């Protein structure tokens, strides 16, 4: 027997021992196929937690960073106001890179953690959707505050989303487009969200009698979009619309203005510093739909939020920060209305009709019990003026 294979045998033995040990330790936690009994000792703890699924690393890390700012601010405010019926609120973060595989792996850990009374996140719908079934089974509310996909809440009655539905966003967008002209060219991002959003846009455009003279999707990682923007320009539209995110929106604005010499109106982009930075002067006049404007909001709660946010982080919050902030505020409100338990949160979402709202001009909202979404939150239109997003009047 060679040294090599002896090492292997030793390794194997260690490995087997480790596996047995792990199994034994685990065995004390669970036995049988029916899973852990998650909520047994939740009532005794001094700290209750909200689980967070979010991309701290990976390609979406920028959004994870924005989320974390809003979440942390809300948590500290909740605790400063007396916490959840006297208990401290904590956030347990799980970095998933917004990768479905990792969401599926950590979801059972959150579900089995008795101190967790609700879960917020993830950034992207496929990742969120991979975790939802586990939370549904565990009777744990999954509050997908960034998941505007209309199918997101279909997994079950514990899956909720306060995100403004893609349908309302796109109707508002198409209506604003109709006021500019009769002929539009549309490009949209090729993913679950973009596809759905464009369908709603097209539907509303047809109702408004707007003619779509050119349409094409584009892949999120495409770096040269001239081949679709040339025909979009040459179709002689009154307006070019992009349904997408920030970096791709900036690429389109830059290509249209700098490379293709297009000077007509442009709708597209994202309410992030990243977009403004990337598109620079070309962002000027770009119109997007949003839920919130740090500069122009007249909602007193939102104004207080903007002030607190600016004090803590030194810049104005955007849509990603406000929705994350509101998610924690909503769930804390729910826990205080009933009790800080999994059942309490679910019951509150089903019964409470005045959740705090920091977007739009209303100050409260409630859920549609059929769809588990918040149809009352209306999108607003924003336009880039002097390098800032301000409310847009069509």
């Amino acid at each position, binding site marked *: 027997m060679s040294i090599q*294979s002896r090492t292997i045998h030793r390794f194997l033995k260690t490995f087997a021992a480790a596996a047995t040990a792990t199994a034994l330790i685990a065995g004390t936690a669970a036995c049988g196929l029916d899973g852990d009994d998650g909520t047994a000792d939740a009532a005794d703890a001094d700290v209750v937690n909200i689980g967070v699924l979010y991309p701290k690393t990976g390609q979406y890390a920028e959004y994870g960073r924005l989320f974390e700012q809003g979440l942390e601010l809300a948590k500290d405010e909740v605790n400063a106001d007396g916490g959840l019926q006297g208990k401290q609120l904590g956030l347990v973060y799980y970095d998933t890179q917004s990768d479905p595989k990792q969401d*599926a792996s950590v979801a059972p850990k959150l579900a089995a953690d008795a101190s967790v009374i609700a879960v917020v996140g993830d950034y992207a719908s496929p990742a969120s959707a991979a975790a939802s079934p586990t939370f549904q089974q565990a009777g744990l509310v999954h509050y997908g505050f960034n998941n505007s996909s209309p199918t997101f809440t*279909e997994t079950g009655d514990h899956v909720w989303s306060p995100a403004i539905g893609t349908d309302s966003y796109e109707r508002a967008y198409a209506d604003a487009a109709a006021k500019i002209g009769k002929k539009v060219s549309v490009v949209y991002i090729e993913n679950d969200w973009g596809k759905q959003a464009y369908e709603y846009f097209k539907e509303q455009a047809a109702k408004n009698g707007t003619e779509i003279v050119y349409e094409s999707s584009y892949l999120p990682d495409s770096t040269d979009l001239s081949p679709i923007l*040339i025909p979009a320009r040459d179709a002689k539209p009154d307006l070019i619309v992009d349904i997408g995110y920030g970096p791709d929106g900036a690429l389109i604005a830059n290509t249209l203005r700098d490379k293709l010499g297009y000077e007509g109106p442009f709708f597209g982009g994202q309410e992030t510093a990243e977009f403004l930075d990337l598109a620079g002067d070309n962002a000027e006049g770009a119109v997007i739909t949003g839920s919130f404007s740090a500069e122009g909001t007249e909602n007193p709660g939102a104004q207080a939020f903007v002030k607190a946010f600016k004090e803590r982080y030194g810049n104005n919050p955007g849509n990603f920060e406000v929705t994350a902030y509101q998610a924690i505020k909503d769930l804390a409100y729910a826990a205080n209305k009933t009790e800080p338990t999994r059942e309490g949160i679910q019951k509150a979402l089903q019964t409470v009709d005045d959740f705090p709202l920091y977007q739009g001009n209303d100050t409260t909202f409630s859920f549609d019990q059929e769809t588990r979404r918040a149809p009352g939150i209306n999108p607003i239109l924003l336009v880039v003026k002097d390098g800032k997003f301000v409310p847009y009047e069509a």
Partner: protein
Amino acid sequence: MIDTLFSGLIHGGAYALVAVGVSLIFGVTNIVNFAQGSLVAVGMMLAWYTGSVLGWPIIPVVVAVIVVTALLGWLINAGIIAPLEGRKPIAALLATIGVGQILDNGLQIVFGARTRPFPKLLDTSNLQVAGVRFGTSDIVMVAVTVLAMLGLWAFLTYGKAGRAIRATAQDPQAAQQMGIPVKRIRNLAFVIGAVLSGIAGIFIGLFNGNINPMNGGTIGLTAFVAAAIGGLGSIPGAVVGGIVLGVVEAVGVFWFGDGAHDLITFGALIIILIARPQGLLGPKTDVKSEPMTGTFLAGARPIALPWWGNLALAAALLATPFLFSDYLAGIGTQVAIYAIAAVGLTLISGSAGQTILGLAGPVAFGAYASAILTTQLHWPFLAALLAAGVIAALFASILTFPSWKLSGHYVAIATIGLGAVMVALIRVAEPLTHGSLGITGIPFPTVFGATLNTQQKIYLLDVIVLLVALVIVMRIQKAHLGHVFDAIGSDQEASEAIGIRPGAYKALAYAVAAFLAGLAGSLLAHQYTYVDPTIFNSNMSLLILTIIVLGGMNSPIGAVLGSIILIGAPELLRVVPEARILAYGALLVLVIMFRPQGLFARKG
């Protein structure tokens, strides 16, 4: 149309510049350097940092990029590639994949994930042709490409070091005997390739306008496709390939929309590989004789446990679902699913020696087949599971069949393309698959009337399927068929001489792998209850291959071990997320360098 052609030409110029570096390294070292795109990203980010944050003008920026990338090129070769000398080149290929991952993730840790505007080191839109504006930057980029091509040609033909590089490429032993310092010459080739990539990064940054540290992967892959279209190893070929790809993409996207982008890019690659494997300008003779087939661990044998050992392990594995907590069982499901796909890969990549870099394709077909059969046709789960395997095997085999006449690196390249094409087809086949929208509401698995709705129950099902997969693969390995696969993997010419038809057997081994990948896809779909095309990306393919490299290319039990480490360990590393994303690449490099036969195999 002239606008589109013109913009395609400029974009093609950008491809060509990176492709020249790819072709150079391949031509002189016989190594496909998958880290090339990441080196481009290094140049790009460094130019951003020095040009934007420090405000340097173009000349010092270029100098900084040259110095850093030259150093990196030297480090990569001297530290990782050179020690692999004498092993099968596939070892170096896999090592460069690891290096690329380390560079990509390292850049992200250093610079953050944010997309940034590239500094306008040169004018980018001050000139106009037809309806398209372009800039001094584009002119300089094309000039640099042409100069690099001519310069390299002159250097390799007339320069002393250049001729030494070529001699080394042709026959390292003979070159050494003629007094050529082979090591130093190889270092030189790598340094030149790395510097070219770094400079390309500056121009790609200027061309794209917006840059992100994670851009390297896509840039490398397209440059690679361009180099393969032009003919790997041929430097004029790289330029032609880049321009052809740029124009084909522009015209294709103009007609079909950018949603079909991947289909056009990788479709072009596959058509070229089938019709003219040596590429447009590649030398005709090279492809067949490349000594690149084979597991890089010639003679490595999987460790065989006695029958009672296997039985005990199987029993232990079967017991885990009854013992594990929700969290462990949840991780267990992911480990088991990836292990199922990896176990199949040991047959084709391990035994038969064909590097498969596109297994996410059959996984996706299996997932979609199962999702569609259960949600639209209301098939019972078990029937859908089996059908998923069969459908994945069938379609993957048909699509892949033409590539078995290729050999060496070209198989790996073709499977990258096929993996991408299979997922792109799913995206395009909208009425059936809902395209990018994905399929929601896929039911939990139901077995004999019982719905598997806890982590433990799903995990038990996954474990049973995994055991079946292990039995199938281990039986095949022991049978006559397994020896035929081994023979092809060890020496294709010799096996042909004794009357084995390698193409047919490779296809068969791949069909088995695709069948098991399809099963894995189905299990995944019914656990997530949701699928969309973004789940089945090139990272998935890479991960499955890494699993078997780690465990031992031809060791099915090693595949399980590899899956436990690569899928399970990142969960343990959750406390240090930054280190976590570096772990895969580092592990891949370390295993190839220090335990090339894999953890669960011994040297022959």
